[in-house]
């Protein structure tokens, strides 16, 4: 008899880090005396910060209603931006020494600049112009140039020199984290995947808020333990999540644990999922170029994914197509943050691609809080439409 994944100590650790991420960072600071830098978008080359002994922590929201961001952000910016800024204004990120954003969508920029201006005690902030054109042959060169500036700014702030050895060490830790999480994801190709989307979310998001070396230790054990896991849950419909910052556990709890029909996520193509860690740094003599290439060529955020010259497709779609085949996906949930333009701009084409592939899909618009009843109906109806032939007598 195999183990149940919910009993694994590692999973509990991920959840504990996820739930108490602020406490973790504060303790880390106390323990190490190091600096903590909040980052807004997954295009920030965390390795450079990590190489300087900094703990990079992703700035996330709390999914609680708030009323303090409206003086600074108009309603039409996405709920994630409001939520993250609210955390800053409420003092939950009061331990941050610095904050940075790699150029991404306008929503994040809007929120980031207010965060920088309005959250007290931030010593250091850095807006990193990361290329928007990741389908462009010069993007990596440009990214490398900007990473040089970024590195210099970090060194200048901390009064340290980031050596090649520091970078190598950071890249190694980060790559290991990526490799291990990829391994876990690959186990989900199985008929009976060892983890659910909720578990994956805990794993990935916790890696964004704790020291990767520490995360790696737990991850290693997790990968090991997962070999023996045999869950008794009914897998039901194999779902793939396509979206952005989907880290609302209510959404996973509803779809995977709260419906009339069994369903399990087998892949999350989003920036709190695979898009964050997929793709290694191929390190070499030119460390910053290696980093630049990894970030430029990773599975892109829709904000950066567009036709250019001879390239007419969307790089992300190619990845999605492969995942659907490799993971034997039955249906796709497109979970889009309300008002997220980059995603909205891809949705008509994405639907068309999925239709052509014969893959069922459903579009949900996420907000700060979720109308659970409405979502349940939609997802259940989608599953009903996929089966139950014998009820038509």
């Amino acid at each position: 008899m195999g183990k149940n994944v919910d009993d694994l100590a590692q999973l509990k650790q991920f959840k504990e880090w996820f739930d108490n991420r602020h406490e973790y960072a504060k303790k880390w600071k106390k323990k190490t005396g190091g600096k903590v830098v909040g980052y807004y978008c997954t295009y920030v080359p965390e390795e450079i910060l990590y190489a300087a002994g900094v703990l990079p922590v992703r700035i996330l929201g709390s999914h609680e209603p708030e009323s303090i961001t409206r003086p600074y952000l108009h309603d039409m910016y996405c709920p994630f931006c409001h939520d993250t800024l609210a955390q800053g204004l409420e003092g939950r990120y009061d331990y941050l020494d610095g904050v940075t954003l790699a150029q991404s969508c306008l929503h994040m920029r809007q929120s980031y600049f207010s965060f920088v201006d309005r959250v007290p005690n931030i010593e250091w902030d850095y807006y990193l112009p990361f290329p928007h054109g990741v389908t462009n042959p010069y993007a990596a060169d440009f990214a490398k140039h900007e990473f040089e500036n970024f590195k210099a700014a970090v060194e200048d702030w901390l009064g340290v020199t980031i050596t090649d050895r520091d970078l190598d060490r950071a890249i190694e830790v980060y790559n290991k984290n990526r490799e291990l999480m990829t391994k876990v994801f690959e186990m989900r190709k199985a008929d009976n995947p060892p983890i659910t989307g909720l578990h994956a979310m805990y794993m990935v998001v916790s890696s964004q808020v704790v020291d990767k070396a520490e995360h790696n230790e737990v991850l290693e054990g997790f990968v090991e333990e997962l070999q023996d896991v045999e869950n008794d849950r009914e897998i039901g419909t194999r779902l793939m999540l396509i979206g952005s910052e989907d880290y609302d556990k209510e959404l996973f709890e509803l779809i995977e644990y709260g419906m009339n029909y069994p369903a399990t996520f087998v892949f999350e193509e989003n920036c709190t999922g695979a898009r964050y860690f997929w793709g290694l740094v191929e390190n070499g003599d030119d460390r910053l170029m290696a980093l630049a290439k990894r970030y430029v060529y990773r599975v892109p955020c829709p904000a950066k994914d567009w036709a250019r010259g001879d390239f007419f497709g969307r790089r992300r779609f190619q990845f999605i197509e492969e995942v659907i085949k490799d993971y034997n996906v039955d249906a796709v949930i497109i979970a889009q943050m309300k008002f997220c333009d980059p995603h909205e701009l891809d949705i008509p084409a994405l639907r068309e691609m999925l239709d052509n592939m014969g893959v069922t899909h459903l579009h949900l618009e996420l907000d700060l809080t979720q109308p659970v009843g409405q979502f349940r109906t939609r997802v259940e109806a989608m599953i009903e439409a996929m089966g139950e032939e014998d009820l038509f007598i």
Partner: protein
Amino acid sequence: MPVAGIDVGSKLTKVVIMGENKKVLSYVVMRTGTDHKKTSEEAFEEALKKAGVAREDIKKIVATGFGKISAPFADEELTQIMAAGKGAYYVRPTTRTVIEVGAEESRAVKLDENGNVKDFALADKCAAGAGSFVDAMIRYLEVTPEEFGQLALQATRAIPMNAQCVVFAESEVVSLLHSNVPKAEISRAIHDAIADRVAAIARRLDIQDDVLLIGGLAYDIGFIDSMKRELGREVYVPEEYPPEVIPAIGAALSAL
């Protein structure tokens, strides 16, 4: 000679007759309905009757709310912002922040020590309809307005709910109702959501004490409670006059 202030709103029409000495002689509140002109005429006549003043003795009539288009007999118009500011300063001179929550519109007005309007903010369109949302929810929960406010005070926990859009919030209420969540908790969640939204507008002005809450929702003790918690400071409501007639008082004052 006395003057009159008239405020035709989307839900209620309010008329105030005021003496030269700034004393309120009478006030009347009526449901606006769809024939605004008729309602405003009727409300005005009734206010005159209550005050014991003849129509020809009224020196000047100032209309706010929908303004002259709904009360064509008015001599002048005053915007709701100014009316709220003037009225609030009249009933509580220490007021520096006025928060008005009406059926459709919510607004916040910042006053200086002389009662001049220094800044104002309106709800973003997405956040409109606070008052009528409450009306709909009262109907939904099958309670009286008084019970609705009371219920919120009995809640033992706060349920997070969409605070920006009443339509989404309503979907969430439907979900809650169908999950057999107690009415007290739903009521509290609704009040908190509305307070969140209203506070979000007020925060565009740098909020200063005293805060005076006016408009129809200022009756609702559940709402007042949520507002206090939300703003983390004392929130006052008019004592001598119903909270929804304050802008009509402001209009009357500007007629003097």
